[in-house]
């Protein structure tokens, strides 16, 4: 036998799964891309500029944060993902210093002050978003009605569906009659010609009456943040993450499930209806819920370690999202709900440790 160079001496195991941090991050990024492309198509090139600025801010934040710790971690992809999520949570018309600030805050304050990837207690992208939301609230709540929805020559500003319902109800000072969709119709909220055709065609084909507005929400022809509008593409991306087991099904399932349940039971109350009259579909399709449930609540670092913990966390997030959406002063509750539950993760982890093999139940103790 020829004398080869020294062999690797490593501890067991000698083989490894193909999983890696950059694969996890890359998978999530790929799953997010279609929804972002949709956002750029819908809102125009400015949406692309917001995304690029967010990514640049994130890269800068990562380089500075990691640089201070004499590391180079750009290749793990997590900063890119944070930057992308920051951009997806921005309205298209936002001044470009807002996404830049949000990304820098996300990376430098939310992530690197705690020691970088894996050590942050709060989802960095959401921290960045909430930071700029409270810093530049009016810029962060100025929405654009895309021309592809209105058919107008130029994009005009207008409210999101959730915003329109919330302010409409507040102006009314009482219950709104009907449901959110009827209420939006009474406010002359537009539905795209495409969705109206689709609703008609669908009725012709199946005999079922559907609301054009919900088709718009499903495909993403609606005002909102750049990356949150296309429910369909986000669901496809989420399905890909579930299929490749990058995320666990527990968090999206119990998040959306508990939210849907509560909305179904209590969602009719603001419209003067009784219990069990909420419009679940409308609420599932609108706002940042799907983006949040599949891509942000599932962030490994800031979600619990065990399935039991994930279920508790997801139920809490669903409850808080419902609470903020229905009774809070903001139309949207996803970001805040996830951040609030992030705070509870260490406590949840403490009390939901795995059941040890060969140890009587009463004696289980978290490591």
């Amino acid at each position: 036998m020829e004398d080869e160079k020294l062999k690797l001496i490593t501890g067991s195991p000698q083989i490894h799964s193909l999983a890696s941090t950059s694969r996890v991050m890359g998978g999530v990024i790929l799953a997010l891309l279609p929804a972002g492309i949709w956002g750029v198509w819908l809102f125009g090139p400015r949406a692309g500029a917001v995304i690029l600025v967010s990514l640049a801010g994130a890269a800068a934040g990562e380089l500075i944060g990691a640089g201070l710790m004499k590391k180079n971690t750009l290749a793990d992809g997590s900063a890119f993902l944070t930057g992308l999520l920051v951009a997806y949570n921005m309205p298209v018309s936002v001044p470009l210093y807002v996404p830049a600030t949000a990304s820098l805050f996300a990376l430098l304050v939310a992530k690197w002050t705690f020691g970088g990837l894996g050590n942050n207690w709060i989802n960095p992208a959401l921290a960045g978003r909430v930071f700029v939301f409270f810093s530049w609230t009016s810029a962060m709540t100025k929405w654009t009605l895309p021309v592809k929805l209105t058919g107008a020559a130029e994009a005009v500003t207008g409210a999101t569906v959730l915003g329109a319902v919330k302010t409409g109800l507040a102006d009314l000072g009482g219950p709104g009659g009907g449901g959110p969709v009827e209420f939006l119709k009474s406010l002359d909220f537009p539905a795209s010609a495409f969705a109206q055709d689709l609703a008609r065609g669908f009725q012709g084909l199946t005999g079922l009456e559907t609301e054009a507005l919900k088709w718009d929400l499903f495909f993403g022809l609606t005002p909102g943040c750049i990356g949150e509008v296309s429910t369909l593409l986000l669901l496809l991306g989420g399905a890909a993450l579930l299929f490749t087991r990058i995320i666990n099904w527990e968090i999206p399932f119990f998040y959306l499930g508990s939210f849907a349940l509560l909305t179904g039971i209590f969602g009719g109350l603001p419209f003067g209806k009784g219990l069990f009259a909420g419009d679940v579909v409308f609420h599932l399709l609108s706002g940042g819920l799907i983006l949040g449930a599949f891509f942000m609540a599932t962030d490994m670092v800031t979600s619990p370690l065990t399935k039991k913990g994930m279920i508790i966390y997801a139920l809490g997030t669903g409850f808080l999202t419902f609470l903020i959406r229905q009774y809070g002063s903001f139309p949207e509750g996803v970001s805040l709900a996830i951040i609030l539950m992030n705070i509870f993760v260490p406590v949840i982890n403490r009390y939901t440790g795995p059941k040890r093999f060969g140890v009587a139940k009463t004696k289980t103790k978290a490591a």
Partner: protein
Amino acid sequence: MSGIKTFPKGGLHPPGRKALCSSVEIKNAVIPPVLTVPLQQHLGKPALPLVEPGMEVREGMLIGRADGFISANVHSPVPGRVKSLKAVFLPNGLQTQAVEIEFFGEFDRSGRRTEGRKWEDLGAEELLKIVEDQGIVGMGGATFPAHAKFKVPQGTRIEYLVINGVECEPYLCSDHRLMLEKPREIIRGIRILRTIIQPEKIAIGVELNKADAIEALRKAAEAEGLPLAVVPLKVKYPQGDEKQLLKAVTRREVPSGALPSAIGAVVSNVGTVFAVYEAVALDKPLIERVVTVSGGAIAAPANLKVRIGTPIRSLIEECGGFREPPVKLVAGGPMMGFTFYDPETPVTKGTSGILALTKQEAAAAPRTFCLQCGKCIAVCPMGLNPTGLFKLIDHSGYARAVEGGLLDCKECGACAFACPAHIPLVQGFKLGKLMSRKEL
């Protein structure tokens, strides 16, 4: 739920790669001109040397005497002359004294396959004595002296004798081939163990990827008239661990920190059972074992019956050398085995496999921070929190790690295999155990 049994918690499916040599028949390996026989091939104290340089030895002659109860005899694998006593490194990093033997002369037993002893009339005491004399150790990898394991404490009822034919480590086929080619001998070995241990029930657990072995064992058991259950098990790592095997077969959990006897069970590997048979029926000490030589870098993977002390280089040459340069040489399976760099390292009683892994096979992600993904917790068969334990050990919190179950960890490597951040969890736990023994 399918009817196929397994353990309920954790586990995973590393690529099996058994096809490389699962259909290659066991053949006798070439005996090299010089063999190096370590005096510590078992758990416990090393054997005391009985030979000096220049002495002539016969095949099967006692050359190292067990030092105490938890120790094992060592015999000369070949006839020849003692060249020297020297220190060698074993793949697990242990340095031990070894007897270097120059091989020449006549074999006393090689080729003799007839049962020389009327073993069916022997009692438990006599059989246990033979097992002890012949230096039998657990051949699944742990190399615990067999006589110590089989000696049932007085007053203990053993309900189950469970034979481990799981072989859940990827690549390895030595137990599989043994069950396929020597089922009758294994069943007779179990009969011997039955006399020693007096269990109420006997079961053999075999993973379903070895359906042919299950069949062969069932037939042999029937032919021998031995009532036992051959239990097919789901293919899942680490099904072959003692505690996971017992959970699957008996539905009982060995309590934390206890031995299988706590739930009235004794577990033994099929390789050990075969060695017990040969020791008792053929009066043959443990001087050879079946070794799987495999891995993507090996030209012609094979299952070889190897004399203890044979340098690994000789086995690799016999398998056609390397088809491409390996990045790692592994003794044992890829999940729990050890890397070594010196191809002169000898085969010991615990060497179930020799693997030469290619760069692609040994590929691992770069290490990053822990993502808190929880994969390690999901795959841990012992219900531990590997990432939490690792952090405690990393911060010298040994006592708290022990409290969290560190000593339950069997270093099966499932957590480290699955970890996307490629954190050296198993090394951490080995260190943690060492430090906790020192400190606590």
